[in-house]
């Protein structure tokens, strides 16, 4: 089976986010009031071939830990969906 995967990488709580802070400082000048706690991350999309969703998740978790994130400063969240087979 093929699974579509989306990994969201974010800075861990407590890690300074100068990009987020800069965006937040720009908001009042643009007229956006009440927008706060801006944090900038990145998303990485790819597909994984695996026997089932649990196996796909296990692969992706390993991939996130060893490569897609730096666990010193980053966290990740994973969403996985099976690709509908084409007849």
């Amino acid at each position, binding site marked *: 089976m093929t699974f579509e995967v989306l990994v969201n990488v974010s*800075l861990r709580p407590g*890690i*300074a986010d*100068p*990009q987020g802070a*800069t965006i937040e400082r720009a908001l009042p000048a643009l007229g956006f009031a009440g927008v706060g706690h801006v944090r900038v991350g990145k998303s990485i999309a790819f597909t994984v071939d695996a026997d089932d969703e649990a196996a796909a998740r296990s692969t992706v978790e390993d991939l996130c830990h060893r*490569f*897609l994130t*730096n666990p*010193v*400063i980053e966290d990740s969240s994973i969403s996985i969906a099976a690709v509908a087979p084409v007849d």
Partner: protein
Amino acid sequence: MARHVAVVRFPGTNCEFDVVEAVESLGGTAEIVFHDRSDLGAADAVVVAGGFAHGDYLRPGAIARFSPVMSAVAEFAAAGGPVIGICNGFQVLTEAGLLPGALQKNAGLKFRCEMVELRVESTDSSLTNAASRGAVLRVPINHFEGNYTCSAETLAELRGEDRVVLRYVDNPNGSVDDIAGVCNAGRNVVGLMPHPERACHELLGSTDGRPLLASFL
């Protein structure tokens, strides 16, 4: 005692020739070792030079750490050989787990390219044993992601074991505890964001990088 230095180059490294030039000016010999090699030859020391390995894609050093040459560097480090990571090389060594912590974007989001002052905090490392404790060295920086970050536990460990070997006199990038360079527990692996190889000739405005590079030559 002439020593031979392996200077590691990844696709995107751009400071390797400066390192070779500086090492030779100090009486050592050097060769550039490409990332796909799995041995370091007859090296007495390794320098992971600065630049933008693999375009800094994903994160600086994230892709470079999986290069064949990094296995050889890890083995060399485990055997106690001096390994120095300069700028992007420091980022590579943290990603490879050879040094603790991580380098993130500078506070202020500015690429900083200027001469800075570094204070030698410990002379017990492969990069500082020929320097004087407390000496202030003028060495240039050239980076966007040089903001050294680590957990509170790691910071306590680094301080407790005297492993912060260089500090900025005037912190240019937001690094925790003004850290410019750290070493591993064995004190043979050292990473720093400033470029000592660019401070080895009077024409470059400073020769203060010489005692640092001389430490492993």
